[in-house]
């Protein structure tokens, strides 16, 4: 008897939450979940929340006649904390979608959870290609960049310049592995070799031991398959140990405007890097950059601009679908072209990957920089079809072959 009662109760609960989601509860709520206090706090952080707010304002603050609300939280780079927050947002705060999701371990965890709940995630902060590969989701989208694009961009540029033997310093979690694997494969496909690698814990402060191993490996290129403060520290300390003077080159595989600003042009000059956005690329991007600067005190990198684009596209998809239901919105997101300050003629592939152009950039010398935040020269535009994995070969089972 009790068992029956319990079952009935559980069914009641289940049906009532489902009803809530369909009814859209009078508003559309977007959650920006990322690292706001750790090594990636400048990479995305609170500024991504501002970018989301800008997108909502530019859209008019309302969609389908109901207000759009943006909330935010700090996941501290821990997948378990992130999952708890996501669950709480979905279950008790009627959040309709979660975005940004810096850190690959977090991105994968929250995307999997959201797949269960049939909620949209648009990832702009995490890098792993797994998000749109084997672990892809009908409700999961990957917007700004990924490890494949970084490998093709920065890795490709260095291989072309003769860097055919590589040693990797890799952050010891999903993102680092993915970046090392993608770049390593790219190097090998182009006739190069990978002579070794070492895995370091996230948020390592002292890289000297690892750098010494890289130095003695004799590799022509030291690939930094890490991000944020870790990469900055590694570059700074590499200079100390005379690595670049010794003839080895550094490949900062994931390095954005935010980290260049932290490191300073003196130490960062000459680095080659790949981003999906640069504020000083044309008039429109510069205008967006200055607006962003007024609100946050800094210029946007690809994560910030990507988050703006993701929120804007999400709202457009809701409007087109006439509903904020996960299935309907996911369908529209795949159908609508992306044309905004971040992407020109971007389109979303079946596996959830937003395919757009990436930019190969070089950090300017201090005397070449004409104004604050004028840090990059655009070396080349990498067409989306080259930068990102062919969806048919991504390993995602959503793609019909």
């Amino acid at each position: 008897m009790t068992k029956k009662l319990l079952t009935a109760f559980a069914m009641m609960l289940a049906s009532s939450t489902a009803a809530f989601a369909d009814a859209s509860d009078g508003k559309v709520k977007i959650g920006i979940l990322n690292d706001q206090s750790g090594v990636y706090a400048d990479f995305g952080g609170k500024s991504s929340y501002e970018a989301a707010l800008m997108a909502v304002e530019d859209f008019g603050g309302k969609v389908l006649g109901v207000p759009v609300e943006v909330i935010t939280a700090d996941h501290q780079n821990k997948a378990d904390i992130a999952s708890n927050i996501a669950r709480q947002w979905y279950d008790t705060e009627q959040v309709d979608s979660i975005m940004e999701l810096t850190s690959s371990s977090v991105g994968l965890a929250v995307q999997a959870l959201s797949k269960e709940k049939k909620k949209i995630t648009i990832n702009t902060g995490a890098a792993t290609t797994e998000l749109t590969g084997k672990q892809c989701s009908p409700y999961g989208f990957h917007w700004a960049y990924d490890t494949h694009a970084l490998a093709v961009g920065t890795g490709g540029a260095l291989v072309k310049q003769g860097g055919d033997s590589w040693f990797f310093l890799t952050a010891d979690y999903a993102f680092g592995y993915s970046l090392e694997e993608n770049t390593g494969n790219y190097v090998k496909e182009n006739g190069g070799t990978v002579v070794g690698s070492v895995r370091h814990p996230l948020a390592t402060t002292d890289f000297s031991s690892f750098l010494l191993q890289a130095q003695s490996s004799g590799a022509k290129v030291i690939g930094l398959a890490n991000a944020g403060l870790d990469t900055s520290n590694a570059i700074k300390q590499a200079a100390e140990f005379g690595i670049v003077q010794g003839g080895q080159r550094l490949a900062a595989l994931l390095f954005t405007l935010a980290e260049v600003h932290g490191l300073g042009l003196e130490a960062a000059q000459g680095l080659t890097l790949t981003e999906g956005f640069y504020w000083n690329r044309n008039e429109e991007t510069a205008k967006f950059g200055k607006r962003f600067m007024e609100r946050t005190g800094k210029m946007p990198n690809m994560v910030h601009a990507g988050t703006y684009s993701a929120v804007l596209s999400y709202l457009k998809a809701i409007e087109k679908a006439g509903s904020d239901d996960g299935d309907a919105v996911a369908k529209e997101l795949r159908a609508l072209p992306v044309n905004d300050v971040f992407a020109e003629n971007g389109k979303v592939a079946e596996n959830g990957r937003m395919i757009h152009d990436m930019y190969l950039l070089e950090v300017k010398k201090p005397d070449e920089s004409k104004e604050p935040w004028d840090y990059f020269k655009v070396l080349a535009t990498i067409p989306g079809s080259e930068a990102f994995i062919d969806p048919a070969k991504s390993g995602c089972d959503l793609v019909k072959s």
Partner: protein
Amino acid sequence: MIFGIPLQAFLGQLLIGLINGSFYALLSLGLAIIFGLLRVINFAHGAQYMLGAFFAWLLLSYFGIGYWPALIVAPLAVGLVGAIIERTMLRRLYSLDPLYGLLFTFGLALTIEGTFRYLYGASGQPYATPATLAGGTNLGFMFLPIYRGWVIAFSLVVCIGTWLVIEKTKLGSYLRAATENPILVQSFGINVPFLLTLTYALGAALAALAGVLAAPIYQVSPLMGSNIIIVVFAVVVVGGMGSIMGAIVTGYLLGVAEGLTKVFYPEASNIVIFVIMAIVLLIRPAGLFGRDV
């Protein structure tokens, strides 16, 4: 060859370990002094280390004051901040359970770090190596940046100097006596509250000194303190809570242990110190140099 790696690489890693050990030793020294004499578990130590580095950076970017003056000015300034904290707040907690001191300093650390993160972001600020110590020399088995050599030498001098002051001078004997029996010492006409303020300020200044030393090596970042503080606590525990010599020796030893782990099994490099701590606590609960209570 040692354990399958060339001797030269091994020596290089040993030296790197010593350099990191220098920071551990300097930081755990300050912690041990504060705990040994004040019985306060100073969780704000990491924040004070970060403040030292930030003061050096602020002095350079706003007043054009370089590394050498900063090496003196920044610790003095942070020492002063420490004295004010002790006078106005920490002092009130001496009569309570040590847990309150721990909670207070922990809260303080979060507040200071949060403020700096708000003001300067998490990516950190660059601080250049002073020109006189730039470059490096080839030791045959490794390329040693001159600045790192300086860090080892300077921290050794400071550690031994501080130990001598506390163990061998009159001021040191007052300090030790004042913590043993404050009422008796006070009755001899010695200003005990002032001595305690001085102790806390000294501990904070030592942390700041380590911060200035670290500035040219690491990014000057609000997070730099919280990254290192837990390790330093482990060092103090392994050395024996409150044992000053224990803190110094253990600092260098654990730096080397961590350095070698980075060669043999890098993935474990951030936990090896805690594994050692667990083993030491099982075998010698009072720590390597601690006296059983």
